């Protein structure tokens, strides 16, 4: 194989301090090399050096970098600009800071084509459009017309990748391109980079701190630590038997993160057995829940994913004993929840709308203390003490307790909602779309809070949402609901990376393409004519078989903990 980049005895120091130390490395054509190291290990400096961005006036450079058999450091600046962008593309961590916020995507995206290939603007725009379509961006016209801030992080990053690969460079350097993006989009971007490398024969240097992510994308991996390459080799090899301490540490960090996420499960806390909830409206029976069976393990975060009207809220209300089911049982540690006396101390709930979930006539202190008032009845001082402690736990100041709900911000109110649920020290917390009314920043804070609380007091979460992104970030297992039934359930990775049911597949696809699937689905899911017969998804499914119309599929085990209800598997 042709070697496209060769780094020989390369060292870089800044004011006597060594940043990179004697690097030897090469990248061949069409190869994806992952450079893995923790932050501060010098991996980004290496990338900058390859582009010749480290000026010799500031840095002390030794050794040579050959790109296409030409020494980068000896080339004049004029030659270098020709290489940058045309031959070597660079994708940065934060696309929104890389893109100019006041210029439309169209002119930014066509810039490299215009500059390096001397293609006129209109032609370049057309080329770009085709290219964007290839990269799974629907409606590229609209995309080109928008400003960077109108795009989501994932979409913007896709644009940056498109822009950098438009001149068909021989090498793309991606510096942590996915670290600011959620799991699902991360996955799609990795796929995108991989496809690019294969289609155009581009080599890729993929810089990351996540060894497992590197394993998903790269052929070869170089582990870098304190400016030195400590290990290099085939990805699978390195992952299986790391030879050096540094690699092992990185690997452990990843695994520890995972282990924390997956938690220790196995002890079944809540068992839901064939739960049905039918509402009569006139002659129609609305089957809000149509035979749902689930197990919730201690300490896990179970995500329940589904569009509005799929019965997820009904499910949560039955689990919290707010409603009684038509038939079926919910067992907590083996006992029917409707016969447990102090069940309210075990399961608590956080609601979607923080305005309607609080009595507007009550002060925050009384709202938070409601659980104590109903269940225990403590003295005034103790009550106030408990309330203040709970407020502190969710990150609120105690002065808030004398205010009324409408005097708080949405994020604060939602925190009060959490404090109210926590005051009885529940074991299970049901969150019904708790972040959907919040802006993205508060959303992030809220999710961090959920994770913090989980670690502090060993909570089990049932997290109900229509937003697969959120589940991708926080859940251990995901159950996908559709029209009152569970169509697929499995660990997060199985659902996100290997969905089996066509409905789940569509949801994940939509999320990767950054579409709001549910907005569209509102007017196309009306198939009330067929409420009970067959698979409820058959009207929308692309692969309907005769059987789907007649028989409703049961959940079958595919492998491990992955179950799906579909006739086609």
């Amino acid at each position: 194989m042709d070697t496209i980049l060769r780094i020989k005895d390369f060292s870089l120091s800044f004011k006597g301090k060594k940043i990179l130390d004697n690097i030897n490395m090469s990248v061949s054509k069409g190869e994806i090399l992952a450079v893995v190291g923790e932050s501060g290990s010098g991996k980004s400096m290496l990338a900058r050096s390859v582009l010749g961005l480290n000026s010799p006036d500031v840095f002390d450079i030794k050794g040579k970098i050959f790109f296409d058999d030409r020494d980068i450091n000896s080339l004049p600046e004029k030659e270098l600009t020709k290489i940058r962008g045309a031959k070597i593309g660079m994708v940065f961590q934060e696309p929104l800071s890389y893109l100019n916020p006041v210029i439309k995507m169209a002119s930014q995206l066509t810039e490299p084509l215009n500059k390096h290939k001397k293609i006129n603007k209109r032609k370049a725009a057309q080329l770009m459009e085709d290219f964007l379509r290839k990269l799974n961006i629907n409606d590229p016209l609209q995309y080109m017309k928008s400003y960077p801030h109108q795009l989501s992080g994932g979409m913007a990053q896709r644009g940056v990748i498109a822009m950098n690969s438009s001149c068909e460079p021989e090498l793309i350097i991606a510096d942590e391109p996915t670290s600011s993006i959620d799991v699902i989009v991360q996955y799609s971007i990795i796929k995108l980079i991989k496809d690019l490398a294969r289609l155009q024969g581009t080599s890729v240097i993929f810089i990351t701190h996540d060894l497992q992510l590197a394993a998903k994308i790269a052929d070869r991996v170089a582990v870098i630590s304190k400016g030195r390459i400590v290990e290099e080799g085939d990805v699978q090899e390195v992952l299986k038997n790391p030879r050096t301490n540094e690699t092992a540490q990185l690997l452990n960090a990843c695994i520890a993160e995972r282990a924390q996420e997956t938690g220790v499960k196995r002890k079944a806390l809540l068992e839901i057995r064939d739960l049905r909830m039918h509402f009569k409206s006139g002659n129609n029976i609305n089957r809000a829940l149509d035979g749902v069976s689930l197990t919730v393990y201690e300490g896990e975060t179970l995500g329940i994913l589904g569009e509005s009207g799929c019965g997820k809220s009904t499910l949560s209300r039955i689990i919290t004993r707010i409603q009684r089911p038509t038939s079926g049982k919910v067992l907590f540690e083996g006992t029917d929840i409707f016969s447990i006396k102090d069940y309210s101390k075990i399961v608590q709930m956080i609601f979607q709308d923080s305005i309607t979930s609080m009595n507007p006539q009550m002060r925050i202190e009384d709202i938070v203390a409601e659980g104590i008032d109903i269940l225990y009845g403590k003295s005034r001082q103790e009550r106030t003490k408990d309330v203040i402690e709970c407020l502190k736990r969710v990150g609120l100041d105690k002065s808030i307790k004398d205010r009324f709900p409408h005097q708080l911000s949405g994020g604060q109110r939602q925190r009060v909602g959490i404090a109210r649920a926590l005051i009885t020290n529940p074991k299970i917390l049901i969150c019904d779309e708790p972040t959907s009314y919040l802006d993205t920043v508060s959303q992030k804070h809220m999710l961090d809070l959920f994770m913090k609380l989980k670690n502090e007091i060993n909570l089990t979460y049932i997290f109900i949402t229509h937003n697969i992104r959120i589940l991708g970030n926080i859940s251990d297992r995901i159950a996908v609901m559709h029209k009152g039934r569970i169509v697929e359930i499995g660990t997060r990775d199985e659902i996100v990376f290997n969905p089996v049911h066509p409905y789940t597949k569509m949801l994940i696809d939509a999320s990767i393409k950054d579409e709001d699937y549910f907005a569209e689905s509102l007017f196309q899911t009306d198939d009330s004519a067929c409420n009970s017969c067959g698979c409820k998804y058959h009207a929308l499914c692309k692969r309907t078989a005769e059987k789907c119309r007649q028989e409703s599929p049961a959940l079958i085990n595919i492998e491990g903990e992955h179950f799906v209800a579909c006739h086609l598997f």
Partner: protein
Amino acid sequence: MLFSIKTTVRTVLKSKLAWAGAVILIVIAVMAIAAPAFSPFDGYSHDTDSIFLKPMSKGHWFGTDEFGRDLFVRVWQGARISLAIGILAAIIQMVIGTLYGGMSGLFGGTVDEVMMRLADALYSIPDLILVVLITMAMGNSCFSVILALSVTGWTSTARVVRGQTLMLKEMDFVRAAKAFGAGRWYIMFKHILPNCRGQILVSLMLNVPSAVFAESTLSFLGLGIKPPDASWGTLVNEGFKYSNITYHPWVIFLPLFFIAITMISLNILGDEFKKALDSKH
């Protein structure tokens, strides 16, 4: 929204009409309490020398009636009874209506259906017939009038509260309380009724004038307060019976005038409260 009496009253008093109504009512109330005590006349003793004296003669500001009793004192004595009965009846109506409507809405289903149909049945019978029947059965007294008015007048409050309850009980804060295992009564008194306060207040404000008027009607018909006790209704009744409207118009028109301005003021205030609360939602 948060309901507080203070802000509501403040909004109401922004209207000049409401101010006027409130001032008139306060004057009437103060006079009703104080006037009879400070007058040299007692309102009961007959004085054959001064029958049908015109207003502002011989110290009788409002003149005298057919027995020579001082009308100024009798009008304010009447105001006491009329207002007391009106307010008491309205409060009892409010309590019955609130509890009935709240329970009906909270229980829902068949219970709700039965309770509301009962209330509808009661509502469909003209109030006056029921009141006449009750006072005839119980005899003329303050107590029987209050009872009669309370029994018939609560249905509108019940409807309003039930409607609110049906809405409020689906709110998440009620669900949150249920998740803590709260009982029906807790939910009703802690969550539902406090959120109905505005509506309850408005229906109370509008029930007072109708109760005052109903009492006057009854007394005018001779079914209400027994003479020689006076209410505005009995005063009109007596004037109607014993005097000639052409010669002694003040005997009839003075109590009528007070009935009218009290009704108008109360209705204006009630409407202003309604407006103030509506604009907040």
